[in-house]
């Protein structure tokens, strides 16, 4: 009994020290949407995330890949949607609902193959924080210093340069 108590306590300590402590872990029964080597998509809610003209008309701008600082986890992360076992209909349903509280609907998604993410020194992890969005994942590996914005911009630029207009998918109704 004492051993079980100790084991439980040790496990709790390990969990609280983990960078993923604030994340809900996928259960054995829940499918993995963000998997190693799997592709992900980035939702676009602002039209100025896409080049409006010039040589890269319709391609994502670097700002489309701007990571946000997570105040609890104290790290920069870029939200994405895992695409493993996820239908296109489901992706667009998420695009309509995940920021509905802000009256925002996804204008597009940017398809990101796993190889593209890793080629710029980043990696993807599942982050199913919200019950209605178990497909949520984050792209990590950004420079963590708040003042190192130019370093993050460099990686964003690399990622954007690897994308083309065909990686930008519009919702079925706007095609």
């Amino acid at each position, binding site marked *: 009994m004492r051993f079980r108590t100790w084991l439980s306590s040790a496990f709790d300590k390990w969990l609280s020290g983990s960078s993923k402590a604030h994340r809900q872990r996928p259960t054995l029964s829940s499918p993995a949407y963000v998997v190693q080597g799997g592709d992900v998509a980035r939702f676009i809610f*602002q039209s100025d995330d896409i080049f409006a003209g010039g040589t*890269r008309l319709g391609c994502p701008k670097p*700002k489309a890949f701007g990571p946000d600082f997570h105040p609890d986890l104290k790290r920069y992360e870029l939200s994405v949607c895992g695409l493993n076992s996820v239908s296109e209909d489901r992706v667009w349903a998420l695009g309509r609902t995940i920021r509905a509280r802000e009256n925002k609907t996804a204008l597009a998604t940017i398809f990101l193959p796993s190889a593209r993410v890793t080629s710029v020194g980043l990696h993807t992890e599942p982050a199913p924080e919200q019950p209605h969005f178990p497909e949520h994942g984050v792209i990590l590996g950004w420079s963590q210093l708040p003042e190192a*914005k130019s370093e993050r911009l*460099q990686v964003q630029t690399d990622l954007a*340069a690897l994308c083309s207009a065909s990686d930008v998918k519009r919702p079925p109704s706007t095609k």
Partner: protein
Amino acid sequence: MTTVSSSAYGFGYSVGAPTPAVGEVGRRLESLLKGGFSEAKQSISASVSRVYDELQALAHSYGAVEFPEPVQRVAMAFLEALPTDVPAPDLGLDSDGEVTFDWAGTNGRMMTLALREDGRLSYACRISPSDKQNGTKVFVNAVPNVVVECIRQVVVR
């Protein structure tokens, strides 16, 4: 998100006759901004009005809280300070409230720049996978030379 683009004559619109230089556009827009949106709208020429409209549309799409007037003003000042031979950038607003300016060339050449309200200027330039640079500068009336050189390398034909 502005639709203005480069021409052989510098900053301006790509269709039609030679267009005003960025300095002129910037100066006029800045003074117009200081004078208030409604008054400005009535007194500017069609070409300048389009730049103004693009910026206003951007501000409108984000709202005054996310894209406040002081940030718009520093963006105007930056446009004003760009050399006349530099093409117009694609404008945007970052999630942290900084105004973004993007230039794209051929073969994956790209320059992105984020300007904070206090003049901090973060930039990243990509000429090729092995020729890149990034840094932080302060913008006070003049665009730093290193930034201008990066833009020129990106948009070179």
